[in-house]
């Protein structure tokens, strides 16, 4: 029989009617929705048990203790460890997303020579050649580590110069070190006992020093109080975060800090607010007033306010002898609540040997910030885990990333009590990466290996029988039966904190009032991090909120 058009029509009608009495439309509708809930191209977190490990952050000299949550062999979360005696569990914003840094697009994956892929062998032979021809310099961004010892001793053996760069906090301590003829790393601020802090532009509440150390003190003793136990006087041209949180904000003209310090000193002497000692500052209040933009009355009022509550401590942003001299006058050097020498064992620190001959090559450790520019004409061997935009270097050598390197952490800058901790390598390094120390150790195996140095230092601490190891619960050194046990405790995330210093007074002799130094370095993470290397989630602060102004350096 012939199927007519109408039959087909009716057949289709039947089909359509029928299909609604089957699971097809309903199940497909449901499944399609489920499909949209589990799109294959959207990554889902790993399954499996989560374990927590203690570690230490090596992104900056502060060496905060971390609690790292691990799943499937990878870090899935970072938070501060409350056991740390200084940070008390605080971290900087970068720390909380640091576990993602190893997958940052700017991560260096391979040796690069003049922008082209190269091999470690080539890098090594090139460096050995440079060493042979000489002179070379080795630049270390964070001296005093076990790795620094390797760099130092290599420099010593191969007639290279060893330069240890200092960050702004360390620079602010440099004058006292010079006058007392001790090493900068052996000095620190006794913030815990201060009652008045006069900050000349130091970003005390914005990434200064060890995260949490000062902010905790400020929060407990100052925040929002009209008459706080801890008075913070911020002298700074612009309204910074620190200025906003300060007890008093004194806006002055750019660059007139040291003149103001001098004039304050003269007022203090003139009004007998301090015992007259040391050189008399040349500054007169009136011309200080004209240059700082303050009235003479305001300067005098400020001087009185400073000494109203003692002990008082002045902190400069970067190196500033004039402000250091003011501290001397205020008697804030070598006394509690002032600048104190660390007791315990300040690590040996050779002076940065100046080299007059033009450098043949320079080896730059991964701890050196990207702002550092290699001397003209020197072949630069730049170690780094991430490319911070400094492709100026001849050689880019991939260094281990976050939690990938066994390292140790000597006392952080500004800390008045000696500490020591070990940063374990929770993650295995890829074969492609090497630290500068490893690189040099391969060239000269006689250098002291990292773990040997760590062991030696643990034995040193163990022998000295001073201080406490802060872990889950604090344990005094005396309670350890062997140096090996101590080392294990530190490798498991413990932090050794020396006993409070037995006050060995700090002798600073100063002939005349120092002149303006001028140099001043911004010091907090918001401005010193080259933006391409921010953890992507920290970059949200700049990109997806108006909380922070993008750092000027981000243009590079």
């Amino acid at each position, binding site marked *: 029989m012939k199927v007519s058009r109408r039959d087909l029509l009716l057949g289709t009608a039947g089909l359509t009617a029928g299909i609604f009495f089957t699971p097809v439309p309903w199940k497909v509708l449901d499944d399609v929705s489920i499909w*949209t*809930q589990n*799109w294959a191209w*959207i*990554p*889902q*977190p*790993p*399954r*499996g048990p*989560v374990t927590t490990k203690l570690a230490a952050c090596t992104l900056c000299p502060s060496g905060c203790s971390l609690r790292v*949550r691990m*799943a499937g062999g*990878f870090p*899935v*979360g*970072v*938070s*501060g460890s409350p056991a740390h005696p200084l940070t008390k*569990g*605080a*971290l*900087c*914003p970068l*720390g*909380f*997303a640091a*576990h*993602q840094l*190893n*997958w*940052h*697009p700017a991560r260096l994956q391979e040796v690069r020579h003049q922008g082209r892929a190269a091999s470690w062998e080539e890098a090594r032979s090139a460096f050995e050649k440079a060493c042979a021809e000489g002179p070379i310099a080795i630049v270390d961004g964070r001296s005093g580590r076990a790795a620094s010892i390797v760099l130092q001793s290599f420099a010593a053996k191969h007639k290279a110069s060893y330069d240890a760069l200092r960050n702004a906090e360390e620079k602010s301590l440099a004058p006292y070190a010079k006058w007392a003829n001790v090493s900068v790393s052996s000095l620190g601020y006794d913030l815990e006992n201060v009652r008045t802090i006069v900050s000349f532009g130091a970003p005390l509440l*914005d*990434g200064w020093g060890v995260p949490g150390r000062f*902010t*905790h003190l*400020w*929060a407990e003793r100052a*925040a*929002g*109080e*009209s008459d706080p136990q801890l008075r913070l006087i911020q002298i700074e041209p612009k*309204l910074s*975060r620190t200025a*906003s*949180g300060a007890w008093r904000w*004194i*806006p002055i003209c750019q660059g007139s800090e040291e003149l103001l310090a001098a004039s304050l000193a003269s007022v203090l002497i003139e009004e007998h607010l301090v015992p007259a000692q040391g050189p008399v500052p040349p500054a007169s209040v009136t011309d200080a007033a004209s240059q700082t933009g303050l009235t003479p009355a305001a300067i005098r009022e400020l001087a009185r306010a400073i000494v109203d509550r003692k002990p008082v401590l002045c902190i400069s942003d970067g190196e500033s002898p004039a402000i250091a001299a003011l501290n001397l006058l205020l008697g804030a050097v070598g006394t509690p609540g002032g600048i104190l020498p660390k007791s315990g064992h300040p690590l040996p620190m050779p002076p940065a040997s100046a080299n007059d001959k033009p450098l043949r090559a320079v080896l730059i450790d991964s701890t050196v910030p990207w702002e550092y520019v290699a001397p003209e004409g020197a072949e630069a061997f730049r170690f780094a885990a991430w490319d911070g935009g400094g492709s100026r270097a001849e050689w880019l050598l991939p260094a281990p990333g976050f939690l990938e390197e066994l390292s140790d952490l000597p006392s952080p800058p500004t800390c008045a009590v000696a500490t020591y901790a070990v940063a374990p390598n929770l993650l295995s390094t890829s074969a492609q990466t090497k630290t500068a120390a490893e690189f040099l150790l391969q060239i000269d195996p006689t250098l002291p290996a990292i773990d040997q140095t760590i062991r030696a230092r643990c034995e040193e601490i163990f022998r000295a029988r001073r201080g406490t190891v802060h872990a889950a619960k604090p344990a005094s050194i005396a309670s350890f039966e062997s140096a090996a046990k101590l080392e294990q405790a530190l490798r498991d995330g413990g932090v050794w904190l020396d006993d409070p210093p037995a006050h060995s007074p700090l002798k600073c002799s100063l002939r005349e009032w120092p002149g303006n130094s001028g140099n001043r370095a911004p010091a907090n993470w918001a401005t010193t991090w080259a933006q391409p290397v921010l*953890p*992507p*989630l*920290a970059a*949200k*602060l700049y*990109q*997806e*909120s*108006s*909380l922070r102004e993008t750092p000027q350096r981000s243009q590079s």
Partner: protein
Amino acid sequence: MSARYGMVIDLDRCTGCGACMVACAAENNVPPLPARATDRTGLTPMLVHKVNNGLEGAGRREAFIPIACMHCANETPCVSVCPQQAVEVDKATGIVMQIPQRCLGCRYCMTACPYHARYFNWWDPSWPPGMEKTLNPGVATRMRGVVEKCNLCHARLHTAMEKAAAAGKKEIEMTDYIPACVEACPTNAIQFGDLANPDDPASQAAHSPETFRLLARLGTEPKIYYKSRQPWVRALAERSASGHATEGQHV
């Protein structure tokens, strides 16, 4: 048991460092967004606003106001508007929650929220290759086209509940349940706790006279309390509407 979790935020202690924002994003698998994203299309379940007292010169002061979902307890604006029950006030915890898998992305709840604490996934989430290994196992990633917001780190509550169950306990230990932003704050500006429990320090702090809440007069009973000793901060935060006291940073 019926808890009412909430926070007390001491604005005087906030230095605006942003640690809470980063910790929140990391804990909740919030993706980094494409370069086109701005503060208006971003995903910031915890967002710190920068405000000032409107003065110039030496009298000028700035303060920081962290804003997450306020978990409104009364007439919760976002719950009643959702056409398909993707938003719900949890009976046991008082947490206002958003179920991305149920959400159809109509964004009606976003227009309903006076705190702008709800965020839309304008993009499919994506991470640089390999970074997905670092996602937090407790939290499922969202897909584009849905709304998300603060759920008081509910994954951490789950973990605490499981721990309690395994130990044969019915109630969780509050020490096991601390939201990421609370844990992250370097000045302990954020107190977290069960506001229904009179013995809870957070609850005592919240019900003390010097606390206040944003847009309290709308009558939605938010469970995020604030305090500040600085009159201008109180005045600014308590005043209901006016765009004059802010830097034009959000545009």
